[in-house]
């Protein structure tokens, strides 16, 4: 969803991205084949461990607001981290911390967390709002955020179902206020939803995603 913005900002063409990806893949496979444990390079394990202080061990956050990053598609991870790096997203400290990591390191992290299991948060929610949210989701969001927002089949979106309620609600607000750039399709759907339901519609959606628990 940040693809256009980033491509322009960083002058990265899809082809160059692919070449870069292969380059990274080559070197990470070299890493695995290397006989040393930690020698000579920072392993992904140490890099990833720096995320767990805020996002929880293995990227599973206890909440109530910092999102879980386990299981999110690597394309989405990379795009959003690069957007943080460029100060294009609201954050408390993520925008600055993101600057510590090179693109290569972010790619390693993206790969690492995409392989972790996403664990839906066991959290309180409003069942009435969640029910209303389910209908709104079906009408406005399911087209891209498939299976009730639990699928991240389109690699540039994240898992919504089971994410922390506050994070969901605030992020919806950021989209509404154009603090986060939506795709044209999403922006259009969002305007329609807001016209129809206002902020209550965003509340309902957030509660619906939060309600999806095992």
């Amino acid at each position: 969803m940040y693809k256009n913005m980033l491509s322009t900002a960083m002058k990265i063409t899809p082809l160059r991205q692919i070449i870069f990806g292969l380059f990274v893949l080559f070197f990470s496979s070299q890493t695995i084949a290397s006989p040393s444990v930690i020698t000579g390079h920072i392993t992904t394990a140490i890099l990833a461990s720096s995320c767990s202080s805020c996002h929880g061990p293995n990227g599973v956050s206890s909440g109530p607001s910092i999102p879980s990053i386990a299981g999110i598609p690597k394309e989405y991870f990379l795009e959003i981290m690069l957007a943080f790096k460029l100060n294009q997203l609201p954050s408390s400290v993520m925008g600055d911390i993101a600057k510590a990591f090179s693109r290569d390191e972010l790619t390693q992290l993206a790969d690492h967390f995409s392989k972790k299991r996403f664990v839906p948060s066991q959290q309180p929610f409003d069942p009435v709002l969640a029910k209303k949210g389910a209908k709104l989701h079906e009408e406005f969001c399911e087209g891209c955020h498939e299976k009730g927002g639990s699928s991240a089949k389109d690699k540039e979106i994240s898992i919504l179902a089971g994410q922390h309620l506050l994070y969901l609600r605030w992020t919806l607000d950021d989209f509404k206020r154009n603090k986060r750039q939506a795709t044209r399709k999403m922006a259009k759907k969002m305007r329609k939803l807001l016209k129809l339901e206002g902020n209550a519609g965003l509340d309902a959606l957030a509660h619906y995603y939060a309600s999806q628990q095992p």
Partner: protein
Amino acid sequence: MNSSRRDFIRSVALGSTAALLGLSNHAYASGKRVVVIGGGSGGATAARYLRLFDPTLQVTLIEPQKRYRSSLMSGEVLIGTREASTLLFDYLKLSQLGIKLVTDRVISIDSEQSTIKTQQGDEFSYDRCIISPGIDFQWSAIDGYNQEITQQFPHAWRGGEQLITLKKQLTSMHDGGNIIISIPKPPYRCPSAPYERASLMAYYLQQHKPKSKVIILDANSTFDNQRGFKKVWRKYPIERISAEEVTAFDASNKRVTTHSGQQIKADIINIIPPQKAGKIAATAGLVDESGWCPVNLITFESHLKNNIHVIGDAAAIGEMSKLASSANAQGKVCAAAVVALLNGESLNPVPLIETSYAIIGPTAAISRGAVFKPTKGGETLTLIADSLKAKKTKRYPLREFYNAHSWYNNITRDIFG
């Protein structure tokens, strides 16, 4: 069990954990002994990550207390918006990870023999030792303020009983009474915590004792996140006297004297004393004239003693703040360095991230995140990103508040499992 079967089980266990961490599963220094001293944010993290990075290591954690009493979020306990029990953490999960827990106090470390002696008379040998002793206080710095007097005039800078005493003093103070909080020169544990405490106490006074106020006697002229704090202080009964260092304390008259000769009385006097590295660091000869422990900033190995690593508040870490999150970050990097060194390998510079949240009201907080990278030889740390220096378009105190709670919930799991 015969040895080949044992090896097989070990390699399977090792393989799965290593795969989990994305590490290759060979070339480990099988069975090497690492002793970690101190079960706070630094030590517990280091012990945990040593076992995660190399499950074949024999890791022993020596800590005098059965449970860790967090100072994080203690401000909320002080004003009654959080249960004190939520600050307690035991070591059960670390023990389940195969770490040997010893509830005892280390009294000496012999770096020549690589042995450690405890108060109860036990002796431990190590191949490498990680020490995370936290802070001690410079008792001679303030005339009239000493360790015994802290029972009536708690600093409450290491949580526990003193925090509860301070809380009782706060709730029982008469309306119209004043509170002095004195802040030392850096480096001290948690740079934003005195300002957090002042904010929360002032908020409490505003709610319960509207004729009272908080007076900050600050040895410093500026402080981190100053603008953010000062913004909320406009609403609170709080007065800060800048660049006034408390040099003397008169307990019987409840009065402090500053270096410029000002004398101020108050009903509650909360002196946060100047600090130095925890006692055992000095006993073990790890401390230099600064009062802190000089270390290599990649491996955290002491510059003064071989095979001993110092992490957390006690380590001299330049511009990096003495924080739970710093100790946590150092614990992981140090664990990786120890695993590497035990295998005769070295570690490249790893970035260190510090994050701190200060609660400034019932549903408001402010934060700081900074990233440091060591120079190639681990001589110094270079600041490479800092949220305080970044151009911020908008602050979200409410979001920061919930992020602060999330951070607390997550970092304590990262430390204690």
